[in-house]
């Protein structure tokens, strides 16, 4: 019975601790589960440990001299804690890193080619590209211009498209809404939702923009100071008064007295 429950989670992260440079504890026992085919959000403020959690899952920690010092991560039932980042991509985990980071001097088309898995045939790659251009028609128009000159929204679309070429089963996105106009965030999130439904790709979304994220995910985790402080369905989180007050910009009173109240409550929360 336990086995069956485990199998339904494409990813589970169990009390993972991450150390940077062997001294700095960035996350302190984070447990996150992603059910197969669902969209999950990690919410929280700057420096809470959301990005570190994603890097622990994708293995990119190593490039920043970080390592998992405790806990383990399993993907489709296999322990991947010690697997190299590039092999995790082969297993179906793709991480769209923060700040878009497209290959600026390549064209969008070449950006997609660069991400092709080893052994993918030319026709399969072309079919994959067409599918991505269908999701992001804006990219199709500019497929042969230089990627560094695309707009911020287009670069984010390209970063997502590039990740899709790797044939992910779990797509992880770090702050895709960062620096984008609200209508673009809506457009990109809508496309993500479509990809999730049509391709069956599970999605783990890191966002500061909780309002937008909670509209498309089924569950959310709230991370503060390297710990998960709250976990629930999107509906439950949206109606939680703390979340409303701190992350959704809600709350009724806004006078100075309540600003102090805010910082007191937040300390209690973590």
């Amino acid at each position: 019975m336990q086995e069956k429950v485990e199998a339904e989670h494409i990813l589970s992260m169990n009390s993972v601790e991450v150390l940077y440079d062997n001294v700095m504890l960035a996350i302190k026992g984070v447990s996150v589960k992603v059910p197969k085919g669902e969209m999950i959000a990690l919410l929280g403020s700057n420096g809470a440990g959301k990005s570190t959690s994603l890097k622990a899952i994708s293995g990119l920690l190593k490039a920043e001299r970080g390592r998992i010092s405790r806990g383990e991560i399993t993907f489709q039932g296999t322990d991947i804690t010690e697997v190299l980042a590039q092999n995790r991509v082969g297993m179906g985990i793709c991480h769209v890193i923060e700040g878009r980071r497209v290959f600026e001097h390549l064209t969008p088309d070449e950006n997609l080619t660069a991400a092709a898995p080893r052994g993918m045939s030319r026709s399969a790659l072309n079919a994959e590209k067409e599918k991505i251009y269908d999701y992001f028609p804006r990219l199709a128009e500019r497929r042969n211009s230089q990627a560094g000159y695309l707009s911020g929204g287009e670069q984010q679309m390209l970063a997502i498209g590039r990740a899709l070429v790797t044939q992910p089963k779990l797509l992880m996105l770090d702050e895709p809404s960062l620096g984008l106009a609200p209508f673009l965030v809506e457009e990109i999130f809508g496309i993500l939702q479509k990809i999730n439904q049509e391709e069956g790709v599970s999605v783990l979304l890191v966002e500061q923009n909780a309002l937008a994220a909670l509209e498309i995910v089924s569950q959310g985790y709230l991370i503060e100071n390297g710990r998960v402080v709250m976990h629930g369905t999107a509906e439950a989180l949206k109606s939680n008064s703390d979340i409303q007050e701190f992350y959704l910009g809600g709350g009724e009173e806004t006078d100075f007295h309540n600003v102090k109240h805010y910082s007191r409550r937040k300390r209690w929360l973590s």
Partner: protein
Amino acid sequence: MDWVFLSELAINGALTGLLYSLFAIGLVLIYKASSVPNLAQGGLTMVGAYVVLALSHDAGLPLWLAIPLAAVIMFGLGFGIERVALRRLAGRPVVMILMLTLGLDIFLRGTTLAIWGGTSRSVDLGVSYEPLFLGDIFISRIHLVGAGVALALFVAFMLFFRTRTGIKLRAIADDYMASWSVGISVERGVGLSWALASVVAVAAGVIWGEVQGVDQALSLLLLKGLTVAVLGGLDSILGAVIAGIILGVVENVGADFLDPLVGGGSRELIVAAVLILTVMIRPHGLFGRHDIERV
């Protein structure tokens, strides 16, 4: 003004310049994948020439077999250098890697000195020293052959960088982290660029070994190769070729004017001036990429 003499200087200068491009292409290959100017490219070229000599003169293989075999050996050596030395330095400051390549150059020079001694030897390519006349203009045959090799490598690499593997190498040069994130093996890519640069080093070593003999002085040609690479823009293969021609012509024609005035030795001055002026006036060279800043 003697126009025939001047065009002879210019044409032979251009041909010599294309021989410098042989160094520059090797430098560009490595710079494209790892953003490090490889100060060991001169050492690699020298080793390439010695390996060819060892296979042909010492082991008695014919040159048509010795040269491709040397290319294979050097291909392996290039991968080996990444595996043994560079991989540990991934993610460290560029200056560390730069110092490593400098150390590697000195190491290679010392090794060849210990194994083969310091006497200059010739490759004996069998290219005739008979002058070739184009109208009234005298052209060196070996320079012509070398220039042809440089142009052939240029075309080959231009095509290579359009293949999937070539695109992945360019992606690595753009962004290591993003490359890792989509499963590109950065380590293997950097290794491949070193391996290819080492193969180019065999070509450069054979041609230059024929022009000036095989000894440790071969590695000093790095300075001219580096000047060409910087002038062309460190990451542009096309730049390496065009800048090679420019530097060769300027050096040959300029030296002819300046040498009588300063009493010789102005070639080095011209090369140094080109290097310094390029860095001061146009740091990214003629065809090098700018870092993109969107407005």
